[in-house]
């Protein structure tokens, strides 16, 4: 081990402290919202600023989750995230696998057409008109179908399948296995780690989907959590957040907002540790586009 000079040691500690401070600053908003949402409503109303609550309480949460609007939007988002992710994985990986096979005749032209969709987007209105023409307005599938695949994912998945030994597919096809069967029974199980990573990114994408829902869903009963949140947090609008058979007093609006944020973050936090180890791989190529 090298002996460090005094100045170097100071520099290192300084660096560690600065980075620590940065992490604290970045973490603080989440911490604050978390703590306040679990504070006793009376204490919050009295103090307005709570960093360490004396009395904890889950009142904001029990109230929030007992309102039909909030519970329903959570259900809608759960449906979106699960069904959407499964469909996305199926469509993207089947196309990517086919494109990774040398005997696929149109692969070059198709790859070019797919890359083109990354580079050029026709904008909001043509997409909106298409969804409308398809009769998908006010239909939750309007949030899934147009998001099933995207150029980047197909490109990345194809790269991944390219890295699998070609012998696997060849051997299977010599044994009389159709491409569909090879994909389903051999390639997909072999690709579980990659599928998990892609799947979790898709899931987060569906869970966070906001703008498409705003465009296509007028009926508030079909709203996913993000649209409900927008109305709650930013519009302060009159969405129906009334618990049935109301006996408890309504907790302060600010607390309800914070509890809603925590609930909406929770699923992301739960899957976060699982995706984290796949970050580097996924982000390295993905972040080029940002």
């Amino acid at each position, binding site marked *: 081990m090298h002996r460090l000079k005094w100045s170097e040691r100071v520099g*290192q500690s300084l660096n560690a402290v600065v980075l620590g401070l940065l992490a604290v600053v970045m973490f603080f908003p989440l911490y604050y919202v978390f703590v306040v949402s679990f504070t006793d409503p009376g204490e919050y109303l009295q103090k307005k*600023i709570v960093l360490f609550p004396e009395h904890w309480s889950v009142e904001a949460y029990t109230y929030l989750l007992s309102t039909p609007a909030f519970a329903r939007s959570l259900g809608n988002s759960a449906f979106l995230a699960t069904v959407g992710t499964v469909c996305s994985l199926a469509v*993207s990986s089947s196309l990517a696998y086919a494109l990774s096979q040398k005997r696929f005749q149109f692969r070059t032209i198709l790859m070019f057409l797919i890359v083109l969709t990354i580079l050029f987007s026709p904008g909001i*209105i043509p997409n909106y008109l*298409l969804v409308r023409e398809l009769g998908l307005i006010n239909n939750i599938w309007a949030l899934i179908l147009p998001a099933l*695949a995207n150029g980047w994912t197909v490109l990345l998945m194809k790269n991944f399948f390219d890295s699998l030994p070609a012998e696997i597919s060849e051997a299977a096809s010599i044994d009389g296995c159709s491409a569909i069967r090879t994909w389903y029974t051999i390639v997909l199980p072999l690709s579980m780690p990659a599928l998990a990573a892609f799947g979790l990114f898709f899931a987060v994408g569906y869970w966070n989907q906001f703008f498409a829902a705003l465009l296509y869903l007028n009926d508030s009963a079909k709203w996913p959590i993000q649209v409900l949140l*927008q109305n709650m947090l930013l519009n302060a609008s009159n969405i129906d957040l009334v618990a049935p058979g109301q006996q408890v007093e309504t907790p302060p609006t600010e607390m309800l907002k914070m509890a809603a944020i925590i609930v909406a973050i929770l699923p992301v936090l739960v899957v976060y540790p699982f995706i*984290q180890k796949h970050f580097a791989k996924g982000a390295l190529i993905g972040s*080029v586009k940002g």
Partner: protein
Amino acid sequence: MSSHGQRMNTVKGKQTSARSKWLNLLSSLRRDQSLYLLALPGILFFLVFKYIPMWGIIIAFQDYSPFRGIQGSEWVGLLHFTELFANPDFALLFRNTLAISLLNLILFFPFPILISLGLNELKSVAYKRLIQTIIYMPHFLSWVIIAGLTLLLFAKGTGLINELFTLWGWQRVDILTNPDSFWVMVTLQAMWKEAGWGTIVFLAAMASVDTQLYEAARMDGAGRLRQIWHITLPAIRSVIIVLLILRLGDIMEVGFEQIFLMYNGAVSEVAEVFDTYVYRTGIEQGDFSYSTAVGLFKSVIGLVLVVVANRLVKRMGQEGVY
């Protein structure tokens, strides 16, 4: 299929190679049916949801009426584009988009590089991982949540910052409905959300540096700062340049959802960018043709910038994006 083959048969002479190509294709289609079937849903997806909207762009050159459809609507040529350029809003849209992009470039862009340099110097692996875990996290939060957090912290009425200020006897400050602070505010938000995530690329580049280089430099008496300057930074220089050029190519993109969510009447002068304008004129006012033209204008500029940027990256001997 067979009628196709017969037609090909009637073509004589030097077309034989083209003919055998066709036959090859046909036999491949027959032999590998299952492979093409596998690709079909994906191809249909791109056709319907990516290419039909591209065709829909032609309403930018029409006076589109939803009742008459694309076929029945009247053609107006470049009218909507001249309308846009003559509109006083146009200069404003351009200014706001550029301003936010440039602020991003000046404030946001160097930030992940600095963090990466710091993280790379940390000796404790556990401490490094802890910090990374925290600073990556905001990347996974939706813009709705981030806008909501911003409001809870900075709102003039009940925001934490202003509660603190009153506690200390200071004046409440108006941050979110103040045109002067809007641009900086959205840049800081983007930094909070994405800076940690942005370190991944740089850290990966730094990890690939040969440790012997550091050893040698130390032998020659170079301190940490000199090592960063002469070894680490040159090692990630190419990544920095590639990302910088691509960032320049993306200058028309300013995070639509973010701006949309932070938009309010008080800051409309500085917050209206091309995408929000398209939404307002198209979806809210129903002026489909005009807003499609605006969106098309933005997309074309964006495409040209990206292609030029990619060309530049390749000219420097780097691998481009495509």
